């Protein structure tokens, strides 16, 4: 407690939105401390597996029985693997309670999931910001696209988003770096889809936070497709590659790893937060940090957990609970439904390089006059590539013939998988489990969420439309698939401290500012009022930069 613990601003969390908050605040001249609950990961230096060849991993990237035993949740989908195991949460140290199945994949370290994210980056439009109001569900978004558009411009320029200007009204174009190339087969399928559906459905190259031209301190994408091992070229946007160096450059940032924020400290007379209490994850000692502004960016569910543990002497449900919405309206995207098939021909074409990106088919349901028996819609991600192994290998048993057939490229294939919107249901909720505790003796979160009839109906279309589009586009042997798209698997948790126009029904105002503590800003996924069907991180970036601008202006006006 002896050290100087007073800063202008505290940022809780160091992932995508926390990194942005730190960059913006420090660049505006504020002295900032960024608190991260996990270990430090240093750019390049700590990307220990990024330079390894596939054969340098004893299990060739696969997972062992021991890993499965230690990571029962991570084991439920692709994240459990040998190559970046240290970047996923230690489940024994940090358990949670599932009232219903909820797959929660977490990264507790500097950079958070910005090191691990899928990097697909799409703007929202008024189709999405107006959706709740038009459908009469939940509450209206307190903002519209024109207010957010300049902030999308701002964050895209810095983050570096490659993409094509496709001119699609409900998926606005942005400040793009040159797009990545489509494969010949993707181009073929895309042009057929455009013709068949008369422009109502389109297949575009993914808009991705991998840079195709150098940016300051960063080299353009080298097409290694090893992003989630950390990129030694800094070619994809992460806290480490982008926002952290910018923030450090100001000389105004202090980063403190191993800092579990247990509560935001609140002065009930001033109705302001005064700082935070930190439990040092290594020493178990408690520290207090004070600041004029607090940015809460601990990732949706953990930010909510912190709020639930804060100011409980005044509100038993925690800071922000007066609305009755804190912890409610948990959303994600549902996935696991799609189709794939073979594409004949193009034997004289192949691909060069491993493109860490795919194609995107923006939403086409429930718009332009289309009306379904469910609300909202879905998009598809996927790709068309050439496989390895001649099909005749099946008949070839062993020996030279088998070897030769497996060293040739195979046929081309096309694959698409849906990402669907989940509606904000008040009853999809997280609470504090009164019984279960983590390694540090802190009560853990209990998650009670599921998707419902609207999502189930949408999944029927997601599968049938995928099959139909591929078949109509000339893809052969098309097979639909439907996996268990359990909630959580999208790794897009959103909504548990939503914004709104009315403090009675929302936790934050339109500036991501807490109604109950105007100097606390929550700008991770928890502010989301609806989910849309696009990947959300770009939207967190835009709202974070906007919230910092507002916060610093308010601070100057002495309103905070």
């Amino acid at each position, binding site marked *: 407690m002896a050290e100087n613990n007073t800063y202008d601003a505290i940022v809780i969390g160091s992932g995508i939105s926390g990194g942005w908050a730190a960059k913006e605040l420090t660049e505006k001249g504020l002295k900032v401390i960024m608190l991260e609950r996990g270990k430090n990961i240093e750019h390049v230096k700590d990307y220990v597996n990024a330079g390894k060849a*596939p054969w340098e991993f004893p299990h060739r990237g696969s997972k062992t029985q021991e890993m499965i035993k230690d990571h029962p949740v991570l084991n439920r989908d692709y994240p459990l693997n040998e190559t970046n195991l240290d970047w996923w949460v230690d489940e024994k140290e940090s358990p949670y309670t599932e009232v219903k199945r909820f797959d929660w994949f977490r990264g507790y370290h500097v950079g958070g999931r910005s090191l691990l994210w899928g990097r697909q980056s799409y703007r929202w439009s008024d189709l999405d910001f107006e959706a709740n109001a038009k459908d009469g569900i939940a509450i209206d978004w307190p903002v519209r696209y024109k207010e957010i558009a300049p902030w999308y411009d701002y964050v895209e320029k810095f983050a570096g988003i490659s993409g094509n200007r496709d001119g699609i009204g409900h998926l606005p174009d942005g400040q793009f770096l040159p797009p990545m190339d489509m494969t010949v087969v993707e181009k073929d399928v895309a042009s057929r889809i455009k013709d068949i559906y008369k422009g109502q459905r389109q297949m575009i190259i993914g808009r991705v936070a991998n840079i195709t031209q150098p940016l300051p301190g960063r080299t353009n994408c080298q097409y290694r497709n090893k992003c989630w091992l950390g990129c030694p070229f800094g070619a994809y946007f992460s806290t480490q590659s982008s926002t952290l160096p910018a923030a450090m450059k100001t000389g105004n940032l202090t980063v403190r790893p191993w800092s579990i924020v247990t509560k935001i400290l609140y002065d009930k007379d001033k109705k302001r937060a005064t700082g935070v209490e930190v439990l040092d994850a290594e020493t178990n000692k408690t520290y207090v940090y004070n600041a004029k502004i607090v940015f809460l960016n601990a990732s949706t569910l953990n930010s909510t957990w912190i709020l639930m543990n804060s100011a409980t002497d005044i509100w038993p449900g925690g800071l922000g609970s007066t609305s009755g919405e804190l912890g409610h309206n948990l959303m994600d995207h549902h996935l696991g439904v799609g189709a794939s098939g073979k594409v004949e021909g193009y034997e004289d074409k192949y691909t060069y390089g491993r493109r860490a990106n795919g194609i995107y088919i923006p939403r086409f349901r429930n718009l332009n006059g289309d009306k379904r028996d469910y609300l909202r819609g879905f998009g598809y991600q996927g790709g068309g590539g050439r496989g390895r192994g001649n099909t005749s290998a099946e008949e070839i048993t062993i020996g030279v013939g088998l070897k030769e057939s*497996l060293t040739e490229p195979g046929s081309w294939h096309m694959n698409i998988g849906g990402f669907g919107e989940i509606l904000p249901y008040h009853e999809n909720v997280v609470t504090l489990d009164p019984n279960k505790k983590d390694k540090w003796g802190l009560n853990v979160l209990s998650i009670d969420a599921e998707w419902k009839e609207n999502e189930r109906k949408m999944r029927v279309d997601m599968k049938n439309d995928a099959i139909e589009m591929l078949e109509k586009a000339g893809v052969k042997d098309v097979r639909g698939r439907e996996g268990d798209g359990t909630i959580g698997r999208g790794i897009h948790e959103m909504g548990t401290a939503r914004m709104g126009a009315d403090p009675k029904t929302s936790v934050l105002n339109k500036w991501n500012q807490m109604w109950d503590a105007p100097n606390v800003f929550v700008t991770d996924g928890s502010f989301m009022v609806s989910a849309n069907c696009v990947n959300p991180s770009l939207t967190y970036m835009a709202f974070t930069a906007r919230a910092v601008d507002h916060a610093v202006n308010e601070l100057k006006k002495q309103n905070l």
Partner: protein
Amino acid sequence: MNRREALSRVGILLGGTVIGAEVFLSGCKSTATKAGAFSPETIALLDEIGETILPTTPDSPGAKAAQIGNFMKTIVTDCYRENEQKAFNEGIDKFNEACKAKYSKAFTELSAAERTEFLTALDKEAKEFVKTDTYKKEKKAFDEQQDAWVKAEEAKKNFGAVKVKQSYPPHYFTMMKQLTVWGYFTSKPGATQALRYVETPGKFDGAYPYKKGDKAWAL
């Protein structure tokens, strides 16, 4: 291709369902391996089996140079589920017995032609094995039992059960062949000599020229 899609396609690229690689997607239980299951002799035998499945050719070494016996040991020991380990280990005994019965010699003592003949026959046997009524019946019963276990576990809120349930093992030779193919093409000689591997491609071309005889890219 994005990460989620890439990983879901591992099985497809390897030519169907691959045990061990499939463990990647489903799971296995922790168990102690039978002591001595992978003696140096066993590893040497697996090297020779692997080399017969994917032999040395003029342009590239075979599976033995990829230390395929050691790879099989690593994957079976660390990644296989308990029942798959058992099937694999018992398979080695069955393999030796079958070889003795047919040639009155150990596999390592056979000529190259005999080795190929023996494994070709085993490959046929393995493919027919899974088509027999007995196998299908046993598999069905096994799967049902596993599904019932998953249901019971989920009722106890063990939501990860579905990803650790066991699957009924195929013929042991199918396992050996799959491990050889997987291990070889992800090994250094396999990836860089039998296939092409570029560590840092530097660019992406979606319409790269291809002519017959050019090798496929390693993943």
